[in-house]
């Protein structure tokens, strides 16, 4: 068990090392920081509530680009291994496929979290330069963004465990979209006439990741009160969901021929 954890950790660290030398990562990072910076310009178009707009845009950019990094860099990282056969040498070492996949997942997640931290630094610099308030609400929102990313990275891991990178990216984007829609779908289906629609929407809501539960942007920006349950319930949900996804991912990956 201990050695297993060690191996997962070794693969994770190596994944981070490989990822942080990828130019794509810096391109995305550059754009996100640029957008956080231009938020000041955009906000100046409005004669009021500019500070709020800067925060809205900043938090949106952090979420958008970290999801982008998770999907595009992440799927490239996992799939590239199979595609370019780096996995052959790794699996010839005493490493199980599940360990490999978990290591990749962890490395990717750490990479994405690292990006979130860097973007957050840019965000804090820009917002405090414009003199607006940053408090625990923002920390909560960013923390839940990190939790959402855990689910998305797990999704990307799952999809790249059995399909091509392009399809994996599309699937992940698709589930990301549906995951943000599932609450609305549920609400709409409640008014539906047909019973089947209601049942289908309810099950979709239960099965799809409920990504809206990780969205505290508005609460943070407006300084609304955030109850502890609004943080720890989504956190546990994210952990549970990611573990389930990784289980399925390793199950599939273990049975796969690596051609």
């Amino acid at each position, binding site marked *: 068990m201990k050695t297993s954890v060690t191996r997962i950790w070794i693969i994770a660290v190596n994944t981070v090392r490989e990822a942080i030398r990828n130019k794509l990562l810096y391109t995305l990072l550059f754009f996100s920081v640029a957008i956080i910076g231009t938020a000041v310009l955009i906000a100046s*178009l409005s*004669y009021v509530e500019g500070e709020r707009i800067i925060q*809205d845009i900043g938090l*949106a950019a952090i979420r958008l680009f970290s999801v982008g990094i998770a999907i595009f860099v992440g799927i490239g990282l996992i799939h590239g291994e199979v595609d370019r056969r780096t996995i052959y040498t790794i699996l010839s070492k005493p490493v199980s496929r599940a360990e490999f996949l978990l290591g990749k997942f962890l490395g990717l997640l750490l990479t994405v979290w690292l990006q979130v931290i860097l973007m957050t630094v840019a965000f804090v610099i820009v917002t405090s330069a414009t003199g607006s308030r940053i408090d625990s609400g923002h920390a909560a929102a960013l923390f839940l963004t990190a939790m959402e990313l855990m689910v998305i990275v797990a999704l990307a891991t799952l999809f790249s465990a059995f399909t091509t990178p392009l399809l994996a990216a599309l699937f992940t984007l698709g589930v990301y979209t549906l995951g943000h829609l599932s609450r609305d779908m549920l609400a*709409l289906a409640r008014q539906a006439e047909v019973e089947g629609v209601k049942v289908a929407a309810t099950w979709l809501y239960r099965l799809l990741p409920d990504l809206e539960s990780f969205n505290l942007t*508005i609460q943070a920006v407006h300084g*609304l009160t955030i109850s502890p349950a609004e943080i720890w319930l989504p956190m546990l949900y994210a952990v549970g969901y990611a573990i389930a996804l990784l289980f399925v991912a390793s199950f599939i990956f273990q049975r796969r021929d690596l051609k």
Partner: protein
Amino acid sequence: MIGKFALLMALMATVCATGFIHARMPPTTNADRGDAFVPDPAVASVLSLGFDAALADYYWLQAVQAIGGDTRITAELGVHLGKLIDVVTTLDPWVDHPYRFAAVWLTESEENVRQANRLLERGIAHHPNEWRNWFYLGFNQFYYLLENEQAAHSLEQASRLPKAPRYLPRLVARLRSQTADILVAETFLRELIRDTEEESARAEYQNALDEIEIEKKARFLDRAREAFIKLAGRDIMSVDELLAEPHPLLSALPSPEPESLPAALSRGSVWEIDPANERIVSSYYGARYELHFPSREHQRAEQWRAEREGRDSPPSGPGGLDDGES
């Protein structure tokens, strides 16, 4: 060498042609497409994929752009702004200013005002401690809709909230006593001017205040004229008689132009007696207010009321805006 030159020329030609073609394409933005691009608020909030706050900002900036420059505010623009603010406040109902932005600009038709009021009510629901939303609602009810009782209720609510100005209870009393007049309007307008950040809206309010100022001066001259009639047993021939012997009632006439008017813009207006109705008027406006309120607004308000009463059924707002939050 010639080959290189020809290539360079070809490149230049391509760049120029592309630029020419681009110049032919109208730089239409979503804002120019008007209503067509404003989504249904429910659709917008579903499709925002968690980027509600940023999307709200996007539509908010569209709204700000729509009244930028010297755009004339029309009822149609009011409808457009109403939709935009509806989307903004559906996506992020905790925004603050857009509610009053709607109140300031949605004034060109009864429908506009009622839409503004619905938005204000959503604002009130999400900012229960903000007196200004109640205040703007009260103003709309008093000034545009002539619903003094509702206005009094709104101001009462406002007066109970933190930071509300202390004169609000007096305003409520006046509204309740059915003596609402230019003084109520003036109080409202002074507050609005203090609160509003929009330059052009402030100018509008200032205009209304100017009209009220001239009306107040004209009423003062009316009282002097009555005194003159009592003393002299006859009416004045011109306003200047109020200064002259044998009955110098006034030492000087008030300025016939608004105080806020810079001297450079003075039109040399004078006080005169309108031959049509024998009333004292400033040539600056050329007419007196028949009513307590700035004439334009009041006539319009009366017209709306007439229209409303002309219809059998009581007015129902243009459907579509239902506030799930409240």
